[in-house]
């Protein structure tokens, strides 16, 4: 038997039209603008996919069903959402071409893939890249490098905008197969790398800060300041409770008052 006959015939690469990709991309930047406690990003997602709907032959009942599909609870990571948006547009297109894909399937696909991307994106962006970049700009700040701070954030901005643009096309190309993307080991590799970089940078910020306060002739004296800094670093770890930064400012004020009494 010819092995080629067992293979799935390769489909030609499908591309989003430039105009549609542009509209979807611009709108995807504001996915979270209408974030609400009840259904989170549902209105944002529906608003995102409207440019595709506007380009179709319209019928009021079809539009109502379309709205219904997108008005349920939805939440995902904004930086990776475009993989899903591209995939959803592809599914809608396939559904409008033939009845093979059921309405409920699109809803299930949206929820499950959205959740998976939310989890990956939270690990990669919020717990990996963000603390790393924050520590990098703080390190530059401690060195007094203002232009470096702006440059670092500028590079990140370009990176994430390009990622969103490419993700839209990739999601559209893959359609349902974006599920395969989720199993790519490189996600976890990058999560681990960004977290490790964040840990090293956090250490670098501590090191530079301690070196700087050693040189500072502050009134409570170096010793007390070292005690205060050590206490500050230990407090969140000992408490095992993640307090908002604003509450920690008040905690720091309390510590500062105690130090002022102590000397």
């Amino acid at each position: 038997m010819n092995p080629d006959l067992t293979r799935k015939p390769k489909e030609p690469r499908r591309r989003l039209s430039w105009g549609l990709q542009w509209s979807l991309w611009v709108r995807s930047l504001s996915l979270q603008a209408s974030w609400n406690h009840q259904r989170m990003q549902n209105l944002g997602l529906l608003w995102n996919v409207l440019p595709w709907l506007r380009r179709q032959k319209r019928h009021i009942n079809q539009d109502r069903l379309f709205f219904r599909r997108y008005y349920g609870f939805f939440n995902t990571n904004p930086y990776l959402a475009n993989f899903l948006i591209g995939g959803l547009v592809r599914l809608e297109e396939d559904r409008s071409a033939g009845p093979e894909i059921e309405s409920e399937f699109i809803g299930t696909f949206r929820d499950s893939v959205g959740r998976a991307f939310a989890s990956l994106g939270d690990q990669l962006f919020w717990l990996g890249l963000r603390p790393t970049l924050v520590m990098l700009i703080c390190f530059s700040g401690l060195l007094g490098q203002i232009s470096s701070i702006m440059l670092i954030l500028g590079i990140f901005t370009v990176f994430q905008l390009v990622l969103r643009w490419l993700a839209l096309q990739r999601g559209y190309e893959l359609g349902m197969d974006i599920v395969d993307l989720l199993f790519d080991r490189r996600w976890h590799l990058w999560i681990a790398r960004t977290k490790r970089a964040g840990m090293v940078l956090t250490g670098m910020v501590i090191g530079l800060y301690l070196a700087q306060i050693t040189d500072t002739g502050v009134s409570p004296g170096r010793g007390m300041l070292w005690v205060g800094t050590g206490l500050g670093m230990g407090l969140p770890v000992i408490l095992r409770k993640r307090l908002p930064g604003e509450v920690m400012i008040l905690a720091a004020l309390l510590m500062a008052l105690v130090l002022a009494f102590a000397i």
Partner: protein
Amino acid sequence: MIPWVPPGLVSDPNLPALLVLGLMAGLLALDDTAFAQTWFGQPLPAAILTGYLFGDPITGLAVGLPLQLVLSGNIPVGQTFTGDPTSAAIAAVGGTLLAGRPLSPVLVADTVGTLPLLGWVILGAGLLSMLGHLLIQAERRSNGIWMLKGLHSLRDGRLGRIDSLHIRCLGTTFLRGLASGILFTLFIYGAWVPLYDHLPGLIRTSLGTLPLLLPGLGVGTLIDRYGLKSSWHWMALGMVCTFFAARYFSGVLP
């Protein structure tokens, strides 16, 4: 003259500068979660940009850096979103510079004379961020009400309603940022900074230590988030290398 401020205590604010500051606060409020999320709305870049606006980015750095460090554990994800550090950082820098009390000497002149004022301004920013949190929650509740209005489109199939509701949400975020940016700045300028001159000595001494304690607390939050067991060796590596490199170069370099 601002009506609630005793005459002669402070000068008139520069109104065009205040308006530009408000516009910037509105745009950066959008950046926080509503549009693009470039992270220029983080306290440090927001404070530096405000400093540039008033011709003193070093004051922006002095205020933004401790704020950024202590708020580094705040993650703007869905329900866990806390505070409004963007408007607070803008107001802290804008209000202080409008009041003619630059904080750049803390960093430029290598002096600790302005540290207590810096601590006072950061404390004000923290309190304003908490107040801003209430406004953000109110905005999100209004988003919820508008989202429910969109349910009408499930009956009549009108696309235009969805467009207008989403754009209304974007506009609300911008206006919230603009309003809180201006009002918070006026508060720092007209009430918070003038109040500093009437504080007792002990409080001032404590405030002088406050900015120096914040980095420790911020870094502690990150250590807790990473997990002490899995992260201590990486952190120790970065810390030891940087500490000795900094000590060495501070001795070698002029």
